[in-house]
């Protein structure tokens, strides 16, 4: 390897280092809030006394690591082959974030590293699966705040956030952005990628602030309001209580969270169009219509299925919450849905596969892809019946370009392959039934979180270290929509 080649390789550490330092500062911020809470005499649990120490250590390690990376990248020329550079940078960022983000659980809660990495990756990927079987008794408030913050930072994308703050973060900012924003097409909202990131984060922040106020007005204390709003708008699913949203026993809070989850699962470009007054674009959005249609349809089906055991208003309340929670891949719970009738669970599983809208914070295959798949299938049937017929898939009254359709096929293939391989791996690593392994895998790949179909608890504490790492990889692959990460496996990637 020549001198200049090494220089090119090293340049990748610049954006990674910047992001790492940013994360370190966020940890330090959470620690500071922990200190202030202690000084102010606001204690949620006895753990809060000195509970912020772990965060201080973690922040120190993370900041040091980030500084080291910047030193390594010093004087390095950016790689002119931006695409590879960008894929590598994004994957490294997610790797470092998962490891560093887990340090507070090691230093502050005494967890093994595999647990910590799982929890951290689950946070950043907005999965919301937890290894903590006893949240109230093990996690200090400052770390709970960090835990919620990992959701919020990962929701719109760590890279997207840093591109918004530092538009010059890396020569491949645009490619990095494309690698991280979910969905089949990433139309820039604004001509410059930095501006697009800013717009996305403005919408995201506004939605979060509104929810914090609403939660607070409905009776949550400010701490819970902030943590749950972070987890809702990012469609994450971490709660500060073992019982999740059911802890509050408040239909008003449930209803409000249902609405905010639903809003977070909408393509953010729809909000951008609405803010510009382009209501026509909102109305014509194929994905939005399908998204709302699926939510309504699934809610009706599940409500009806639950009528045998409860009244219709109660059935509707829990059905709507759970449908939206799974469709948007948030994973909050208000009811022990594991004991619901089998068809309702199947419906929830289907919703987990579909996921929310492209360009939102949710995971899964995305509604846009599901719609294109169905329309493509329908077109194939028509073409089979009538030779010569030429069809196109339309979204928002526009034909979908061929390149997007080809990418769609690849994406679905990888999605299914990842489900199969991971399910297989989990059955090797842990003594679970194939069904449980599949449900856990789907929950991880679609970034949903709880694996409700597990007999017993809906957390992942019982899994082995190997199983946790397998699911961690599945979560990150699912969040990055595979290709950025899988590109690194290709021999071509490492060729000069």
């Amino acid at each position: 390897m020549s001198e200049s080649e090494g220089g090119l390789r090293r340049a990748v550490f610049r954006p990674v280092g910047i992001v790492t330092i940013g994360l370190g500062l966020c940890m330090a911020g959470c620690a500071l809030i922990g200190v202030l809470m202690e000084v102010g005499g606001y204690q949620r649990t006895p753990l809060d006394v000195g509970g912020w120490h772990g965060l201080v250590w973690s922040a120190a390690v993370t900041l040091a690591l980030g500084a080291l990376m910047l030193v390594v990248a010093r004087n390095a020329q950016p790689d002119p082959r931006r695409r590879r550079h960008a894929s590598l940078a994004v994957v490294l960022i997610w790797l470092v974030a998962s490891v560093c983000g887990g340090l507070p659980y090691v230093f502050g809660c005494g967890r093994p590293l595999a647990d910590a990495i799982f929890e951290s990756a689950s946070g950043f990927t907005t999965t919301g699966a937890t290894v903590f079987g006893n949240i109230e008794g093990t996690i200090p408030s400052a770390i709970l705040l960090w835990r919620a913050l990992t959701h919020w930072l990962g929701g719109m994308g760590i890279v997207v956030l840093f591109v918004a703050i530092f538009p010059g973060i890396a020569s491949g900012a645009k490619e990095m952005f494309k690698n991280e924003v979910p969905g089949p097409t990433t139309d820039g909202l604004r001509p410059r990628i930095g501006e697009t990131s800013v717009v996305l984060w403005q919408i995201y922040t506004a939605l979060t602030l509104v929810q914090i106020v609403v939660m607070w007005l409905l009776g949550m204390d400010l701490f819970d309001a902030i943590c749950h709003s972070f987890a809702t708008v990012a469609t994450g699913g971490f709660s500060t209580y073992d019982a999740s949203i059911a802890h509050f026993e408040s239909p008003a809070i449930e209803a409000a969270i249902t609405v905010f989850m639903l809003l977070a699962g909408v393509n953010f470009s729809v909000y951008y169009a609405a803010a510009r007054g382009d209501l026509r674009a909102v109305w014509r959005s194929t994905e939005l219509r399908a998204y709302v249609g699926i939510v309504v349809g699934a809610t009706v089906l599940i409500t009806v299925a639950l009528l045998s055991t409860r009244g219709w208003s109660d059935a509707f309340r829990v059905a709507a919450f759970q449908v939206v929670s799974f469709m948007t891949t948030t994973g909050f719970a208000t009811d022990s849905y594991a004991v619901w009738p089998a068809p309702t669970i199947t419906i929830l599983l289907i919703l987990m596969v579909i996921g929310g809208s492209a360009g939102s914070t949710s995971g899964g295959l995305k509604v846009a892809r599901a719609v294109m798949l169905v329309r493509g299938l329908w077109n194939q049937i028509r073409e089979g019946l009538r030779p010569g017929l030429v069809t196109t898939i339309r979204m928002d009254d526009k034909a979908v370009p061929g390149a997007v359709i080809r990418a769609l096929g690849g994406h679905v293939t990888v999605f299914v392959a990842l489900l199969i391989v991971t399910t297989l791996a989990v059955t090797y690593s842990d003594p679970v039934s194939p069904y449980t392994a599949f449900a856990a895998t789907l929950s991880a790949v679609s970034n949903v979180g709880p694996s409700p179909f597990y007999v017993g608890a809906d957390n992942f504490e019982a899994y082995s270290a190997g199983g946790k790492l397998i699911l961690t990889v599945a979560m990150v692959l699912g969040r990055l929509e595979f290709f950025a990460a899988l590109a690194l496996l290709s021999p071509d990637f490492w060729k000069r």
Partner: protein
Amino acid sequence: MHIVVIGLGEVGRHLIGTLESEGHDIAVVDQNPAAVQACEEQHDVMVLVGYGASQQVLDNAGVKRADLVVAVTDQDEVNLVAAATAKALGAKKTVARVQSADWTSRDVGVEYGFLGIDVLVNPHVLLAQELALIARSHGAIDVLELAEHQVELVQVELKDSNRLAGRTLSKLRQSLPSETLVAAVVRRGELFVPGGGDVLMAGDRVYLMGRTGQMEQVQDLFTRVREARAVCIAGGTVVGEAFARALVRVGIETMMIVPTTARAEALAATLDKVTVVMGDGKNLEFLGEEQIGKYDLFAAMYADDQDNLLAGLLARKAGARRTAALVHRPKYADIYRQLGIDIVLSPRQICSESILRHCRTTSLDAVRVLEEGQAEVFEIVAPARARAVGIPLGRLKPPRGVLIGAILRADRSGVGREREVVVPGGEDVIQGGDTVIVLATREARPQVARLFQDRGA
């Protein structure tokens, strides 16, 4: 009048022929020396070999003192630059043709004032709109809208089997619905304005005029065709695409047969609600498979005349109720009709007719030109002291070759209201300020001018 024509295509040559016969001074610009030479040999015009968008060439052609500059080369950009430049250099009136896919996708047939160009004509859009009107008619072979859609001029063909054949016009008038009249007859290519004693013959093409909404009833006397519900277009041309859009807009089921995969995919992507099929519209088996017999209208819209003729004839054989075909060389139109194509439209002819409308400087501005200039239709605002004003039409006795088709009453109640339309009988009187729709043969044009001249001055 000094006229500059840029571009010696089919349209340019046709315009030169017509304008020369009307006695104008004409300068012609084209890049092709052979075409220019051929033109010089045929016509008494000044010729220049050169690039139409060049300022120098335009200057040499005398656009500064030109009353009219017409840019009709095969390149839209050259036409636009030439017309805009000519206007900037001082030409009184400029007309340019645009016809690329991009311009056509705007669906604007005639545009005034764009880029400072007085008239921008898109023949593809004009043809698509006209053909869409024909598709919706009850068997008309041409439909022209007048007076902002309030009056229609419709052409029908009198078939051998029709009981109207052999009747005098005065007898026919008794069975015509109210507010309609027979405006002109074309017999063996010759157009005339018929009088009460004239007899209609099988094979005549008849122009009928009347209030929009009444015309279907008149057509029903001549044909048994109904409004098209399903239309098949063969050929993936720009004009075909424009026609498909015009049909979809009015809710007609539309199928398009496109010869190449790439073009078919492109059309399927841009045309929503149109069924696009890749295939050969000149293959009888394929037409059978696609059940062409179920379509009310089959329109052959290929770029090549032979393709259009063949596809049209095969579609007829396959059972399509009506067939339409484009003809790029207008001289073939009669042959098409003789061979059995119902509707024959020429993009070139539509283009030259719509340009010729704008080539007059007198107060008489033709809104339509019929049968290659044999007759014109005018919309004239009658001056209060014109000869035609104030006396019943029965006593006015318009001269031979002139027909007063409709009177739109001067709007005294305000702006933007629908005006009252009168399809006149002998007792009706033209009032000052009324807009009168007049059809006149070329020879009768001076008589029209005399009838509506303001004698006040």
